[in-house]
């Protein structure tokens, strides 16, 4: 795939309105895009095919262009709140056993 340097070549698609009550065709498009539930975010390469799918269900989506897709794990990690602590010193007992 020919790539030009700072080109935004991915769609970031988030389902912000549920597919419940939508037509079979629309739900089929959501399934094809990989949008299983609300607030799920998927990345698809910019192409006429993807653009057409987005246009079919555009009222349900929030779409933006990015240059780098994130994996599912990375997307999940971004949504987690910070732990807020770290273990400074470990205690003596590491494994109580039997629990």
């Amino acid at each position, binding site marked *: 795939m020919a790539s030009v340097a700072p080109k935004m070549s991915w769609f970031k698609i988030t389902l912000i309105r549920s597919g419940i009550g939508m037509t079979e065709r629309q739900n089929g498009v959501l399934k094809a895009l990989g949008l299983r539930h609300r607030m799920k975010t998927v990345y698809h390469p910019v192409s006429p095919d993807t653009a057409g799918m987005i246009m079919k269900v555009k009222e349900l989506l929030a779409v933006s262009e990015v240059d780098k897709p994130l994996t599912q794990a990375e997307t999940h990690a971004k949504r987690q709140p*910070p732990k*807020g*602590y770290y273990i400074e010193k470990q205690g003596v007992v590491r494994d109580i056993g039997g629990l």
Partner: protein
Amino acid sequence: MLLVRAIQRSLLRPQVIETCSSFKTVSSITPRFSLPIRSRTIATTPHLRISSAPPKTSAPTSPPPKTPPTVPSDPALAAHEPLALLTALKVQPSKYIIVKIQGFSFLITPGDKVVLPFLLKDVRVGDTLRLTHATTIGSRDYTMNGNPYIDERLFECRATFLEETAEPLRKKEKKKRRTRRIKTVKSKHRYSVLRIKELIINDVPPAVAAAAGGST
């Protein structure tokens, strides 16, 4: 330079001190101030934002210190009001801190036993935890707010992991009308218990003081 711009911005947009009016006796000397955003790379220059009365217009008479300053006698610090107030907060007898653990906020003071409504799976009994994400540190007369968190270098809050415990077993019976079938759902949520050991406010680190003194 960053700080001067910040001061100019704060002067153009006057901020209203809503809650300080309740402290009638100390309303003149209790502005609320923000401290740097907690950043992963400590080498970056922190951006101090003053969210209260405008700072003193007179420039500091002494040049920024080359050696680590000794608080509170440092003139550059005294000229920079929020950092000088940090010293005032430090010497207050009793302080509280609002920390966020896994997104949940807890207002704690040293000596508290905190029962977290979840289990910390990577911690064992007896471990010492250092709590890092604080949104507010306060005392009777002063409050320090972070934006959104207070710089980690300015405080130390330690807690001991006391126990992994659970609530008593509770059963919920679910039954529909005109049916004899009863479904029982059991719940026994696991909790972690921490004992807050200490809350220390540190002297202002040289990097933060130099950034503040050098910018003004």
